[in-house]
């Protein structure tokens, strides 16, 4: 089961073209949702203003080389190691979800566009990675949902009271969970169950990528930009924070 390409099996029910159109729709939905979010909130305008003020407050001008080095650090540390999370458990959970999501998405695209029917045999590594990615998302996701959500862990909110901030994590977990169940059930050959679970999978996947304008998903784009900007501010003196103390300073 872990070695079969569920999309190829699905090719019996749905045409490869329809699957591919759906994936393209998802990508467009994410871009459109993010754009809609930014336009509606006028956050692009805010950031332009903010960057201008920051540049004016700079006491040092950074060279192209400086900026390139900062960008490299942002990618290697802040993005690649989820450094924005100071809480270790959250950081680990996010790394699971982050890398799991990347693996899951790329293998989905590879299988839907490259091997959508049983005709072309799928290299075994793809479904294995697809399942691995999905499991990584669920490990990080369920761990986060049950134990690490700060409004539950620190702010006393009951675990099953859902708020708008849960839109992203709930649709993500639901989508991937139903995806795995669908792949399993389809592989077992139960056609009714397959159709039902597939329906749920599509529903939650559409919800996940369709509600981008209202969920926290766009922050996956904003955060790296801000991580870069923070490093710039530390280097060019525009930060309003005091500089770190020289050890053993003070009277």
């Amino acid at each position, binding site marked *: 089961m872990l070695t079969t390409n569920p999309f190829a099996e699905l090719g019996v029910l749905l045409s490869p073209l329809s699957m591919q159109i759906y994936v393209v729709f998802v990508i467009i939905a994410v871009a459109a949702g993010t754009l809609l979010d930014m336009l509606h909130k006028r956050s692009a305008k805010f950031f332009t203003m903010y960057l201008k003020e920051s540049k004016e407050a700079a006491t040092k001008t950074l060279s192209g080389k400086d900026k390139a080095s900062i960008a490299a650090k942002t990618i290697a540390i802040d993005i690649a190691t989820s450094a924005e999370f100071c809480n270790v458990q959250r950081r680990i959970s996010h790394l699971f979800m982050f890398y799991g999501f990347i693996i899951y998405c790329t293998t989905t695209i590879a299988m839907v566009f490259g091997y959508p029917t049983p005709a072309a045999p799928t290299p075994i590594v793809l479904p294995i990675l697809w399942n691995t990615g999905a499991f990584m998302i669920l490990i990080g996701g369920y761990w986060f949902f049950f134990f690490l959500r700060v409004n539950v862990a*620190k*702010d*006393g909110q*009951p675990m099953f009271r859902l708020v708008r901030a849960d839109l992203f994590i709930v649709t993500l977990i639901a989508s991937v969970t139903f995806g795995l169940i669908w792949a399993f059930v389809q592989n077992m050959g139960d056609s009714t169950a397959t159709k039902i679970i597939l329906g749920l999978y599509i529903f939650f996947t559409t919800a996940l990528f369709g509600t981008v304008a209202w969920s926290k998903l766009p922050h996956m784009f904003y955060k790296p930009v801000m991580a870069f900007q923070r490093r710039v501010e530390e280097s060019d003196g525009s930060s309003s924070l005091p500089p770190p103390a020289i050890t053993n300073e*003070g*009277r």
Partner: protein
Amino acid sequence: MGLFSRRKTVFVDSDILVIGGGMAGCGATYESRYWGRDLKIVCVEKANIDRSGAVAQGLYAINCYMGMQWDENQPEDHVRYARNDLMGLVREDLGYDIARHVDSTVHKFEEWGLPIMKDPESGRYQREGKWQIMIHGESYKPIVAEAARKAATKVYNRIMVTHLLMDEKKPNRVAGAVGFNVRTGDFYVFRAKAVIVSAGGASHIYKPRSTGEGMGRTWYAPWSSASAYALPIQVGAKMMQMENRIVLTRFKDGYGPVGAYFLHLQTYTENAYGNEYESTWYDHTKELVGDYIDRHPVPTCLRNHAFLEEVKAGRGPIRMVTKEAFQDPHKETIGWENFLGMTIGQAVVWASQNIDPKHTNPELTTSEPYVMGSHATCSGAWASGPEDYAPNEYQWGYNRMMTVDGLFGAGDTIGGTAHKFSSGSFAEGRIAAKAAVNYVNNLGKDVPQVNEAEYERLHITVFQPLETFKVGRNEIVAGSVSPHYILPIHGLQRLEKIMDEYVGGIGSHYTTNEPLLSRGLELLEMLKEDLNHIGAEDLHQLQRAWELHHRVLASESVAHHTMFRKETRWPGYYYRADHPKLDDEDWHCFTLSRFDSESGNWEMEKAPVYHIVD
């Protein structure tokens, strides 16, 4: 509470329960462990002891340190100082007791890691003034909290204690307390052999000068919700001098501290026209208080009085002359760090208004009134004194035990102990703790029992505001206006207005009289009835609701005491317009009160002031 309520009742048993994890509570917790190695010591705090209490942002000075090791002061000197400042009326036995223990307290703080500034020449602690030493105290509270955490069996953060529990076997003996977890909503029943109340005094019982966002910038912490008073009052403990509210002269709006400025930087005040004014009110003040104006230093309230008269005469704003002192860069640094380590809000005010004391003399103001027991104040619970020298009238049991058996107090809780500040409060916590350990050890098998019917009844009472809101909410479409319940903020603003208008707040120039006080008590009575109809939307609002309950009870006590003392003992703190002068013949005494929760009556009496130090 919901169909699937996950709220449970948690029972916590201890030998000693310390309510309130501020300076006094941390002292009590530490000392309880020292003397009670095998005892169960529990500290319960409604916030987080690492930053809870009035010392959250830090302090820049320790205002109570004798310096006996260098012959700087002796405890009796401090008694004279405190007595003088409170116009003769302090518990000299309690004050001496704190003064003799405060030096060891401060030395332990230094050992624990509190940076105390040193005089570069003498090597001694850098004095700010006769009683004050200067510290880099940004982390004063986290350091002291660490000592408490090492000592406690367990520290419970985010549990608000709402009521004490009494012993069902013996009358007038405490057996524990109840409260709720502000995060989870669990109901807590604390069963203890002895209880030390070291909670907060009363801020936000009078309308503050800033009423918008600025409501938060009170001089004394806004989370000091008078639990130190309400908890003992509810169970019939006698209180003293609750009329002695304090008014502070501080920097405008931010209420930043002036001590370091006056004492260390040697600044002084002047009126709007650049003239010295304090001495111009000498004769006038002498008419009111007689020889007390001739004391050195001039009592705090009398300095306030001159300030108030000058402003009333239309010669404000009063400013502090800083331009000279701030030319010295070392003094300038001290002036700013004084705020940053203690009242950051003042630095923000100056930064926002472009006030640089090097070029501008900043404005001063007098604050709204507060009631608390650790500053230039003598209000709080009436407590038994030290066994080795206290007069018989001041001793009925263990040191720092109130008139309820097993109920001890320390810090802002205890009355008559002026000028103890942070170090004195911690020292008092230690004093109460040793006494409490002895009390517990002497109980033997005669251990108090909580009454189940009592805490079950309180269970309902404590969560009632949540129920009231949920049910009452059905009547209106939305919003904060309901004909059947009030929100905690509504009750607070009503309380503050009543106290302001009838019990001598800023709106009435700190002045009241008997007719005003009577009317104020009528309005407080109606407010008390309305407290049965507070609606709390969530646990945070529930905490605010109980803070309001405590504030109202303490305010009632303040009003009764203010009515009882028929004199103006502390002009500059408040005035009885119908008895405008100090009257040592009839009123050189303490005012005591006892609230009977069954009948709802307040019994007032006088108690003698014994001068132990000459």
